[in-house]
């Protein structure tokens, strides 16, 4: 168990190292000069060159990478080319909103998709199972931003129940925060649920065909107990892995939702940074997203070991 986790931890560090290199070189080799963007199209070539030198962009890429790596490892992600604020501060300010959005959506999605997938699998031959699955498949083909817009039109514009934009931090008002997050979380959850339901359904049908489910039936266990005690945990093993893989979808979905609902999160920060060639911020956002991805997958490995004794003791 310990060696299993240590191996995963080492793997995570290596992954992060490569991601950081990718984040740096992808921006370093991108065409266009940040100094030129910063100065606008009225700047003289001399001025652009001066600022380029001032920003250290005239150094060879290798040297710039060494400097960048040293600073990053010591916890300094540089300053924004745009606002001249430390990237650390920008990220720290944006992180809570994104974390809240992502975690809440994931939680809502899992809480809805897991039971739904299990039920659809157990009653896969009843009259309502097929229409439900069809509806879910329809959900996969609906883009997330469209769902968000429909929700805004319905609940904000038409019913005037919920705010359409603006984020209230948890520290300022709990009620306000919840109110401001209902629509974004719903949008992102709806984006995640369909594929999750489909996955759970298929995984659960596989489990239902397992011989140990027959054993449970043959010893007189009722259908609900079979579903909860025998099918659900075994379905969870594969589903958890799938959720880990879906994090990428969650992150990209979060960017879209943050933009639609004007939530000052990592996604919107990254989006603006890309539009303005604000390289230090882009690198910071990529690093944070990658760290989140790696950290969650590490957590999933731990959860895996908790659920499956074969991983723990094998």
């Amino acid at each position, binding site marked *: 168990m310990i060696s299993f986790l240590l191996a995963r931890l080492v793997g995570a560090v290596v992954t992060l190292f490569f991601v950081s290199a990718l984040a740096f070189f992808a921006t370093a080799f991108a065409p266009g000069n940040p100094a030129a963007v910063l100065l606008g199209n009225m700047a003289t070539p001399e001025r652009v060159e001066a600022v380029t030198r001032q920003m250290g962009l005239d150094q060879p890429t290798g040297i710039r990478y060494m400097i960048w790596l040293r600073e990053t490892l010591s916890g300094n992600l540089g300053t924004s080319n745009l606002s001249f604020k430390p990237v650390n501060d920008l990220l720290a300010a944006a992180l809570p909103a994104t974390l809240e959005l992502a975690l809440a959506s994931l939680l809502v999605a899992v809480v809805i998709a897991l039971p739904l997938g299990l039920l659809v699998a157990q009653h896969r*031959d009843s009259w309502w199972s097929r229409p439900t699955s069809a509806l879910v498949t329809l959900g996969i083909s609906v883009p997330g931003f469209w769902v968000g817009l429909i929700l805004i039109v319905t609940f904000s514009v038409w019913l005037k129940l919920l705010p359409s934009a603006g984020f209230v931090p948890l520290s300022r008002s709990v009620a306000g925060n919840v109110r401001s997050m209902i629509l974004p979380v719903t949008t992102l959850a709806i984006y995640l649920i369909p594929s999750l339901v489909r996955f759970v359904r298929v995984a659960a049908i596989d489990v239902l065909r397992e*011989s*140990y489910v027959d*054993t449970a039936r043959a010893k007189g266990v009722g259908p609900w107990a079979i579903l909860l*005690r025998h099918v659900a945990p075994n379905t969870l093993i594969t589903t958890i892995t799938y959720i880990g893989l879906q994090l990428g979808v969650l992150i990209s979905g979060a960017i879209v939702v943050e933009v639609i609902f004007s939530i000052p999160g990592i996604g919107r920060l990254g989006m603006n940074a890309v539009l303005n060639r604000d390289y230090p911020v882009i690198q910071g956002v990529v690093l944070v997203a990658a760290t989140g991805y790696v950290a969650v997958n590490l957590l999933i490995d731990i959860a895996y070991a908790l659920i499956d004794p074969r991983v723990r003791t094998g």
Partner: protein
Amino acid sequence: MTKVLLEVDSLTVRLGHADSAATLVEELSFSVAAGEILCIVGESGCGKTVTARSVIGLNRNEPGFHTSGKIMFDGRNLLTLDEPSMRRIRGARMSMIFQDPMSSLNPLHRIGTQIEESLAIHGDLGRRERRERTVELLSQVGIPDARARIDDYPHQFSGGMRQRAMIALALAGNPDLLIADEPTTALDVTTQKQILTLLERLRNDYGMAVIFITHDLGVVAEIADRVMVMYAGKCVESGTVREVFHAPQHPYTAGLLASIPALNRPKLPRLQSIRGAPPVLSEGRPEGCAFQPRCAHAFDACSTEPPMTSTGELDHLDRCWLLPAQKRHLANAMEVNA
């Protein structure tokens, strides 16, 4: 004869919808007396497993299965019994063990927990008593140091030990009938022998009846009181092991027996086999006797439905048109030939 425990009458199991339905088991009738070991033998797909699963009601909720006939157990017809009552019978009055002990235990639950689950459903033992009883059951089936192994997970057990644990689980409710679906097929020969000995001992100790499904005639000779040979969803011959092995009345049984090597028969350059393959039931069954296309003795009458006849003794039945004299010849031919 002792009291009849299970009586299956004209069991027919069809799979699929309306016209395209395949008849997996057709008009099957047999009975099991209390404390008796009945072996059901036949090739893969002949309906052995479907029959067993119908008896314990495992395929009654499976989509597409249509079951008719009667399965009388303890004076009640299991086919018309509602699901909650059926659940009280499963695991308590009758239980089942499966072919692959690697997959028939839940990998995420401890061995003890899986046995205790059955005890919790069917008894009123407290938590502590259930645990004690589980240790007792595990020792009974020959798990060494059961108290220390009770909290192991299935993957920490060997194949033979898992099958023992499955048997302990099946015994938890003190069943009158144990259905064993090829319980030794996935095990190596030594373990196989141990499991057979165990089952026989348990039958003797508890007077539990056993329906033992196998395609291994060696196993049948070892353990069975009576044997039923199935072919294409029908019983083609049934009788005591002695009768069926020494005087097979149906060409199929004779063919099966001739296809196994035996030390007490002269050695042939090659083993006998039955030519052809059994019919694919989803494509409809042959007219008349299903074995007729493969049978060396087939004649005109075989293309109509063959009868269920008794040769002399009432409890040795077979489904073949051949005359008694020809059938005797069949048995003799097998011994000379093979």
